[in-house]
């Protein structure tokens, strides 16, 4: 069973929903912001790249312009070697950028003109030095300048960095400008040297992000920008290119002289973007930035946001739980009140509710229910007391009624009454007066209290009449008139009265609508006494009743009863019936005493009904003569 409280489970649900939304939002924000930041970083890096390219191109342009001017001057001058040497010396002395200058004469076949010696000047430690290389040194320089290529293309070009052969300390790059004669043959090449330190420091200082790498590519074998101390960086840089063919693609891109290029390189967590662009002289500048560094701050912000979010969700959970617990406290308290009420304390105190919401309605309903139940229970108590009073009165009535029916039987007679309710409408009576035995059995229509009142009247009148010694039909007639008078309720009494002269055994009888008597002659089968039915008592005044007579044999048993016997029903709604009655009476021996006979017949009725509720009063009388 889930024992988690309502407030907790509701809070958990709220937190579940809120955190789901929060995390989805976080993921979306992270993806979008990373994209934006990466795009922005690419753009700004490209901007930096172009700025740097312009910056790098400025001294190159200066050198180129200067060199071209001097070259033009030389070509028109056809000057003497001395003059040329002076121009060369003067150039390195005056120019801030050009620290070395040379003029090399070549023959039309491309070989170096040995008749016209090359002129070399350099500016070292604030003074001009002249340099006269031997032929081997000259070959080395020609290689550095890529002389063969210049002669072939007849185009000016910049060299890759190389170490000068004279006393200059730093690496240099040279601008080589060919001079062409009227036959379009190169007859001389003018060379201006420039230190590479400044370019190097510019490139190396180019770090828009931590761990980003800027490189200047002169050709495949000459790359500057990666210092030997950055060995880890070199490895990573190489790794980022070696994972795929990206480096080759970058080179291809650069060869195609495209402008504003960028690519994504590397794989896994080491991915980076690289932006690159060519300088006007064919050199290429590239900047590689690892995404990890670019997004570092944004990632840190996301982690901070996540921590704040989790912290906030925790606070929301506790606040929610607290608020819900406070709001639902009345329910908890009402349940305690309900439990108290269930234990019988209907005056259980209800919690106070100040709000005007559903809790208030629940409280009001509860209050209403409490009052209703209290009222109902009070009413029930009153009713119960009333019932108890009536029950005790009924008990008294029952005693009075059973007191009316004599239980001190003369010899040879026994009777019993079993009312269906507390009081009943059946009656019997007997008087032994001299040799005359009067007896009567009657049944008031209906049962319960109304029948019992009628029964009492009838019984009293009957007993009174028996004492007067009137003919039976007269007695019944008087009883009839007495009952019928004022009988607005149309109740009636079936009555059988008889008088037996115990000496002559002559029985006079009058039947007012009652069930016929069972006669059991000695050594004979029981039968129903044939009698005029007349009419039940109490219906019509002055009804002409008739008295009949029969002579009984000694040893005859008479059994009188009410319809409670013959109409007793079992659960299958079958009636006891006349046949069964005759059969049961037939089982009684002549020597059986009347009490046993009555009990036996009553027992057979109970056996027949087998616990089915008795729905009418039962009366049985047995007498023997």
């Amino acid at each position: 069973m889930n024992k988690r409280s309502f407030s907790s489970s509701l809070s958990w649900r709220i937190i579940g929903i809120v955190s789901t939304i929060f995390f989805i939002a976080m993921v979306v924000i992270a993806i979008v912001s990373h994209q934006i930041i990466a795009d922005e970083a690419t753009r700004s890096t490209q901007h930096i790249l172009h700025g740097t390219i312009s910056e790098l191109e400025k001294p190159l342009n200066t050198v180129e312009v200067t060199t071209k001017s001097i070259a033009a001057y030389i070509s028109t001058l056809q000057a003497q070697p001395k003059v040329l040497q002076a121009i060369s010396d003067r150039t390195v002395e005056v120019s801030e950028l050009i620290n070395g200058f040379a003029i090399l004469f070549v023959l039309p076949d491309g070989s170096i003109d040995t008749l016209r010696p090359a002129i070399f000047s350099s500016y070292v430690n604030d003074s001009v030095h002249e340099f006269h290389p031997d032929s081997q040194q000259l070959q080395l320089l020609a290689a550095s300048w890529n002389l063969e290529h210049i002669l072939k293309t007849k185009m000016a070009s910049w060299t890759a960095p190389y170490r000068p052969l004279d006393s200059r300390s730093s690496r240099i790059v040279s601008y080589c400008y060919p001079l062409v004669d009227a036959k379009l043959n190169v007859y001389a090449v003018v060379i201006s040297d420039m230190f590479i330190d400044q370019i190097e420091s510019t490139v190396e200082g180019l770090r828009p992000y931590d761990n980003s790498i800027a490189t200047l590519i002169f050709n495949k074998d000459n790359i500057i920008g990666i210092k030997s101390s950055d060995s880890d960086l070199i490895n990573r840089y190489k790794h980022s290119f070696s994972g795929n063919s990206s480096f080759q693609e970058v080179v291809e891109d650069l060869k195609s002289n495209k402008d504003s290029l960028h690519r994504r390189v590397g794989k896994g967590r080491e991915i980076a973007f690289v932006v690159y662009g060519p300088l006007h002289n064919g050199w290429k500048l590239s900047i590689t930035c690892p995404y990890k560094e670019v997004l570092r701050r944004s990632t840190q912000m996301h982690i901070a946001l996540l921590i704040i979010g989790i912290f906030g969700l925790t606070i929301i959970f506790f606040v929610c739980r607290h608020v819900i617990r406070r709001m639902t406290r009345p329910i908890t308290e009402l349940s305690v009140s309900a439990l108290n009420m269930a234990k019988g304390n209907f005056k259980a105190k209800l919690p106070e509710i100040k709000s005007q919401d559903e809790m208030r309605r629940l409280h009001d309903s509860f209050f209403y229910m409490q009052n209703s139940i209290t009222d109902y229970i009070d009413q029930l108590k009153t009713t119960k007391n009333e019932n108890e009073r009536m029950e005790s009165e009924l008990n008294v009535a029952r005693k009075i009624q059973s007191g009316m029916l004599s239980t001190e039987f003369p010899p040879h007679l026994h009777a019993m009454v079993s009312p269906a309710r507390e009081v009943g409408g059946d009656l019997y009576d007997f008087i032994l007066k001299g040799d005359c035995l009067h007896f009567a059995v009657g049944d008031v229509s209906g049962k319960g209290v109304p029948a019992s009142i009628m029964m009492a009247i009838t019984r009293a009148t009957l007993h009174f009449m028996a004492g007067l010694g009137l003919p039976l039909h007269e007695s019944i007639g008087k009883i009839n008139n007495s009952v019928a008078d004022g009988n607005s309720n149309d109740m009636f009494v079936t009555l059988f009265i008889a008088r037996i002269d115990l000496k002559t055994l002559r029985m006079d009888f009058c039947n007012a609508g009652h069930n016929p008597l069972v006669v059991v002659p000695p050594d004979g089968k029981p039968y129903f006494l044939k009698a005029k039915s007349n009419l039940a008592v109490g219906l019509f005044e002055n009804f002409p009743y008739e008295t009949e007579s029969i002579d009984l044999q000694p040893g005859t048993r008479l059994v009188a009863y009410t319809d409670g016997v013959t109409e007793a029903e079992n659960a299958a709604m079958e009636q006891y019936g006349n046949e069964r009655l005759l059969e049961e009476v037939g089982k009684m021996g002549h020597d059986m005493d009347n009490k046993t006979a009555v009990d036996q017949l009553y027992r057979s009725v109970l056996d027949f009904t087998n616990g089915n509720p008795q729905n009418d009063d039962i009366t049985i009388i047995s007498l023997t003569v």
Partner: protein
Amino acid sequence: MDIKITKEDNKTFVAIDGRIDTTTVNQFQEAANELMGDEHPDIDIDCTALSYTSSQGLRTFLMLQKSVMKHGGKLVLRNMNPQVKEVFDITGFSNIITII
């Protein structure tokens, strides 16, 4: 118990199906009360399907008889089965109510 009441001209036809006992006597009494207030005094009751009547049922038949007599009409009970007829005979009701 089922009581069907139909009216034709000045005659009321009633058919009783079932038992008139402690549980149904009130229903019968209510039906009888309606008939007693009726202007058409002749009542014909078909008792073919009446299987039993208690003494309280008899009382209601009696009240109906008295009411019909007062209005100058006639109450007729038809096709009564022998068991029910016996009750009417024993109590002498056969003497005051027409049973055919």
